[in-house]
């Protein structure tokens, strides 16, 4: 499943930025990046830049604002990558 693959990839990108007290096993699509996973806003920028590199996409301020949960991030990546190929 394509969706599952991109979910796994996303977790790999987020993983290094998770604070020590967050168990990566507890992360799911509804996890809020800042409020629940305790990723600070400076690291959120790094995650966005890593996503841009990995998927060869360009993310804007509004994408950053919409990216509240893991699921939101997946959705934005999906939109950006489909727009690029279609």
């Amino acid at each position: 499943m394509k969706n599952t693959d991109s979910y796994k990839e996303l977790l790999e990108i987020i993983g290094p930025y998770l604070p020590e007290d967050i168990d990566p096993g507890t992360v799911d699509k509804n996890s809020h990046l800042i409020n629940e996973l305790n990723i600070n806003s400076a690291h959120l920028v790094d995650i966005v830049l890593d996503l841009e590199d990995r998927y060869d996409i360009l993310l804007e301020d509004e994408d950053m604002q919409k990216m509240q949960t893991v699921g939101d991030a997946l959705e934005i990546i999906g939109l950006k990558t489909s727009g690029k190929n279609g």
Partner: protein
Amino acid sequence: MEKEFAEILHRLPYGPPFRFVDGLTRLTPEAVEGFYTFQAESDFYKGHFKNAPVTPGVLLTECCAQIGLVCLGIYLSRGMGELATEATAVAMTESEMEFLKPVYPGERVQVRGEKMYFRFQKLKAKVRLYKANGELACRGQIAGIFKSAGT
């Protein structure tokens, strides 16, 4: 350019005794260079170290951050189109430094900062601080978030 240097210095959010920039010598969207003289009579030399004064690494880091990150960040924030407001707030978010040579009281150091990226208000820069004799004293990477007043 002189006028631009002065304006950046004016916009720095630091004042004595915690301002570690005397002047700038170069400023482009990619890089910045500036200098500072660590005053030999500064209080902290009495204790760092007892009878062997050396500039503390935290202050070398601060000097690198003020010149290499904050001066560049203020300049880049201005370049975004809108007129920069008087106050630029900055929060340092990361620093990773390596210290190679001691800097003694009264030394005039030179700092170079080089932009790695400036996206979503976050600037990350490579910084290098050179001793009066030109030797590299410390280097590293520093990042911070820049916010203009009202945003």
